[in-house]
């Protein structure tokens, strides 16, 4: 599953670059995609994390180059899904019991499915609303966002103790 997600994210970025005539960029992204796919077979946790950051940067670059945002959003979603499936694969190495493996896969797919469906729905809604960001809204959203994230992170760190 991780490889499918990586292939999708890579394909979207490659096609975007190729259609705009950026052949070198497309080839480079293709190469990065191949590296990640091969890295998945070796169960490298650090590579998954590095590639998630790299793909996020590639999407930011594509937005900076005034390319459509929605494919970039789905690239991020796919990269996140690949990152999660990579984690699932690493966990499955610890157990050979088919029953436990099935339970893990089922649980993971169910939760990821809910998560990414909501994310997809929000993206479509956000795309159609098309609101204009001015300074007032930016400050308000920023304050709310930082407060919300801080609360969330605080809670999660407390959970870890």
């Amino acid at each position, binding site marked *: 599953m991780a490889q499918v997600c990586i292939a999708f994210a890579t394909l979207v970025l490659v096609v975007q670059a190729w259609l705009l005539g950026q052949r070198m960029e497309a080839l480079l992204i293709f190469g990065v995609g191949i590296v990640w796919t091969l890295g998945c077979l070796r*169960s490298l946790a650090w590579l998954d994390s590095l590639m998630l950051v790299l793909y*996020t940067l590639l999407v930011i670059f594509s937005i900076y180059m005034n390319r459509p945002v929605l494919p970039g959003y789905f690239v991020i*979603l796919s990269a996140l899904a690949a990152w999660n499936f990579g984690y699932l694969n690493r966990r499955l*190495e610890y157990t050979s019991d088919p029953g436990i493996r099935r339970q893990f896969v089922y649980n993971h797919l169910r*939760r990821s499915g809910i998560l990414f469906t909501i994310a997809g729905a*929000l993206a479509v809604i956000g795309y159609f609303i098309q609101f204009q960001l001015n300074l007032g809204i*930016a400050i308000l959203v920023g304050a709310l966002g930082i407060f919300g994230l801080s609360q969330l*992170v605080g*809670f*999660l760190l407390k959970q870890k103790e």
Partner: protein
Amino acid sequence: MSERPKPKTRHRPPERRLLLVVFLAYALFVLGLAVRSGEILLLTIPFILVLSAAFFYAPAVPNLQIKRSFSEDYVSPGKIITVSILIQNQGESLDEFYIEDRLPPKLEVIEGETFLLTRLPKGDRVEFHYQVRGDRGSYPFEKIHIRCNDALGLVNRQGWVNAVGQIFVKPAVRKLRSIPIRPLNTHLFTGPIPAHRGGSGLNFFEVREYNLGDPLRQINWKITARHDDDLYTNHFELERVADVGIILDARQQTDMTIPLKNDPDNQPLAISLFEHSVLATAALSDLFLRDGHRVGLLVYGRGQHATFPGYGKIQRERILRALAQARTGDNMALESLSYLPTRFFPSRSQIVFISPLSPADPPILTQLLANGYRILIISPDSVSFEAQSLPENFDTLYAFRLARIERTLLIRRLQRFGITVVDWQVDQPLETILRNVLFRAPQEFRKLGIGF
């Protein structure tokens, strides 16, 4: 079908996935605000959703009951022990539960895994097993590591659960044939040691006048015929059991460790001279107990670990258990034998000292001899033992010769005082060496061609 790849390390630390998501969410958020780009702000949504999922699916505080049990906790070397771990979840359901038993060093896993990853619903119980094997020693098990994750691996709770247990692997006991010892004091019970007193026995002791009750078949008719009125009877030497105190030298300074070979993981394996001393101690204590003696053990080195004198099979197990735990160690106070607790051994008893010997030992050992103890030293040869691991060249050859001379002089010095020393080259069976030394005829007889 290919085999499931094993994790490279048994215990992987939890990944810092939460940190990465938080970092990306914050970075995109700040960047979006900084460049006033709603499109970049939109990209934060997946990350915030993942964080929210972690918030909703965070694992509850685990309430577990964990129990570790062994198929056997006192075994012979090489015997396989099954370790079972039972986990009962008395709290909320756990999506991803990882448990890992930390093995004591030098214990080898033969079958199964020492960890388990599973889902643990509320009230459920799960058990896993693995098999281990170890060389002589004691293997204390202490804590068990547990970790609970959410399904996406973002939030984890981890901790340690106390589950104390211990496995003892006793040394192998090699059967030896009886060896002669001559302590000055004996006990009342019948045994193999001539007690220098007349009575019932096998060896002739004296002829004395017949007393009422003496067996008629023991009357010495030749001497009786020379006398008119009196009857004379043969008297035999009583054979009794005695006290034997075994001292195992566990001082680090007298021990020697040499590399044995390299295993496939390139971890050097080493063998210690002390292991040979332990095997000799086990064999001798078994022999003396089989002969009916009262045997005590003192392991002298890191501390003074004493097994008080006793008889029989229970004492044998006590001694083997003490030997299973014996290890060499440094203790500045016990570097010499000056603090040997002589009161531990009954006076005028037999002491068997098992040690590679150090140059400072003879004065203390001769002092013991002067106090009335009979001393037998079994000395594993440290010089030959170390020479096995050294390269064969001119320097080592001469160093070996010098060390050999020094050791021979040390042994001769002890022998001059009347201490019996068995110089044991550990590649030869102990029994052969014991027979060569202890059953050898006295020097005067050998000069006359009697004995060997």
